[in-house]
């Protein structure tokens, strides 16, 4: 890269000041309260919006320049990767299932983040946060687009990529990430910023992107590695915005502290629950492992998050209570989640499998206190059953947690042999939860969470069949009807990786690429 660095007339601080608040104004024909109707109702008190600082001091003109540079690099690499049949250079075709999960589960969230930051930016009376939110909103749109572009090449060759947007709004496990983000964008602008800008971007996003992207690099997926790092280069700015939001709110008024603490507690847990998908991806789905979920949690949450919360202690902010539960779950999370997907492999839009011996040994080494004791025997039993022609597919629908929408698969903190159940009664109806933290979130705002669109309930209510389906007809097959409603093709998109079309095609094409006859 060879960029001209012009002789500067103004320093960075002055340029930033002129190009942000210098361009803002207070309205006079209409009251500021009417123009910014969402700025006060959450109870957050702001006395001086000019105290807001963007530490990067990035202005829109510089923003366009660097974003354009990133885009040019990204598309050049994606084109080269595709032209060169890059898809045949991944470790093995099982790897592609991580990309399917990412496209159906995460990319639509990028788009929602675009909408969320546009809305939050519009809601803040201060010019500084408005511009930071505008940049982030554009970043998130770019992420959604580049992910769809990069991954669309896989859709030419493999199953499960064809209807990611349709699936995102319907498929049972995708309601977990979807409801997480819908929950955030339907909150007020300050809560949204704490939820996504701080708790997700600052505290948790490293756990999503860094292991996922270096996982892509390790597994030969240059396209994903490139969009991942390109997106991640924006994340550093997003994280900074997230931290700035917290500091700004807390410095404005002491009354803001309890509100912010409650949001941090809530959204750290909400985000962590979504990351269960990432945990199983790291430990089970990447054919070439990078780091275990537990290691990633220790580096990016316990070490870095620990430094962060220690720093925020001067404002009175405490490490969220849920961190203790998460520490107890870190030896179990990925195993329990993958076990559930293996069970429900007939209803998922990607393939599942039992890890091979080498992979199980890796898991034993990474999880010495839990894997051999609790999880290896179960996987070996499933492997044995599959070898005898009894590949286990669970056909009954699971009970879901009303808050995180994950099946009740998690165990009691400290006792991995006992499933954790919590319940609460609201207006005569009973609601179920996977944990104390999800129950507390519901109990704080029951009017919001009673509206949850829970996939299992919806299936039982008959809302997840193709239009015109008659569930009373003779020989009605509910699973088949639900999969049709999902646009998920039975026998192609779902079931075990062993024997799948993806497996056969990848082997045949890779063979053609390396042999002459």
């Amino acid at each position: 890269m060879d960029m001209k660095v012009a002789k500067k007339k103004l320093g960075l601080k002055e340029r930033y000041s002129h190009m942000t608040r210098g361009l803002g104004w207070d309205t006079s024909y209409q009251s500021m309260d009417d123009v910014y109707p969402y700025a006060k109702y959450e109870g957050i008190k702001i006395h001086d919006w000019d105290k807001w600082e963007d530490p990067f001091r990035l202005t829109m003109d510089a923003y366009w320049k660097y974003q354009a540079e990133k885009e040019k690099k990204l598309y050049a690499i994606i084109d080269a990767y595709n032209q060169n049949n890059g898809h045949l250079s991944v470790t093995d075709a099982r790897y592609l299932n991580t990309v399917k999960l990412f496209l159906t589960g995460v990319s639509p969230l990028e788009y929602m983040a675009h909408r969320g930051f546009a809305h939050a930016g519009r809601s803040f009376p201060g010019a500084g946060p408005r511009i930071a939110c505008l940049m982030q909103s554009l970043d998130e749109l770019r992420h959604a687009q580049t992910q769809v572009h990069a991954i669309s090449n896989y859709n030419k060759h493999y199953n499960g990529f064809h209807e990611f947007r349709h699936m995102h709004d319907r498929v049972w496990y995708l309601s977990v990430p979807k409801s997480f983000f819908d929950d955030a964008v339907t909150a007020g602008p300050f809560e949204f910023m704490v939820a996504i800008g701080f708790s997700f971007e600052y505290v948790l996003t490293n756990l999503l992107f860094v292991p996922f992207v270096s996982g892509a690099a390790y597994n030969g997926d240059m396209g994903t590695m490139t969009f991942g790092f390109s997106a991640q280069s924006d994340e550093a700015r997003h994280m900074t915005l997230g931290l700035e939001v917290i500091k700004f709110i807390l410095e404005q008024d002491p009354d803001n502290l309890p509100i912010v603490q409650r949001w941090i507690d809530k959204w750290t847990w909400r985000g962590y629950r979504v990351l269960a998908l990432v945990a199983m991806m790291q430990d089970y789905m990447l054919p070439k492992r990078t780091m275990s979920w537990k290691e990633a949690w220790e580096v990016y949450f316990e070490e870095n998050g620990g430094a962060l919360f220690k720093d925020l202690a001067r404002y009175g902010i405490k490490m969220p209570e849920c961190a203790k539960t998460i520490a107890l779950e870190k030896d179990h999370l990925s195993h329990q989640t993958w076990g559930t997907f293996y069970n429900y492999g007939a209803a998922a839009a990607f393939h599942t499998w039992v890890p091979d011996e080498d992979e199980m040994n890796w898991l034993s080494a990474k999880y010495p206190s839990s894997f051999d004791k609790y999880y290896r025997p179960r996987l070996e039993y499933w492997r044995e059953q599959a070898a005898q022609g009894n590949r286990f597919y669970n056909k009954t629908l699971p009970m879901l947690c009303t808050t995180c929408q994950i099946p009740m698969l998690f165990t009691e903190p400290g006792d991995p042999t006992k499933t954790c159940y919590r319940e609460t009664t609201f207006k005569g109806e009973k609601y179920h939860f996977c944990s104390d933290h999800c129950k507390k979130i519901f109990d704080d705002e029951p009017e919001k969470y009673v509206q949850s669109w829970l996939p299992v309930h919806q299936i039982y209510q008959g809302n997840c069949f193709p239009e015109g389906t008659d569930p009373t007809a003779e020989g009605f097959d509910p699973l088949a009807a639900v999969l049709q409603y999902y646009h998920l093709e039975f026998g192609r998109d779902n079931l075990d990786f062993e024997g799948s079309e993806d497996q056969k095609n990848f082997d045949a094409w890779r063979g053609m690429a390396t042999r002459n006859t």
Partner: protein
Amino acid sequence: MPNIMLVLQANEETRPIVEAVAEDNPHARVDHQPAMVKIDAEDRLAIRRESIEEKLGRPFDLQELHINLITLSGHIDETDDEFVLSWNN
């Protein structure tokens, strides 16, 4: 002591940047991971424009860091000459 982290993509553009940061911050640890470089330091990490320019042999705008940045931690203070990460405690 709280940790500061700066992670950059591993490529030809960042190689001189990493070298400059390592020289300017003798307390920092440089960890080369697949496709990325993770720099950890206690409390404070300074990225200086002049040192990078010396390595690069051309003018460098510190905001060019955005192109190859993966993640970071700590409070940021950025001017035309210096980009500093630190924790306040």
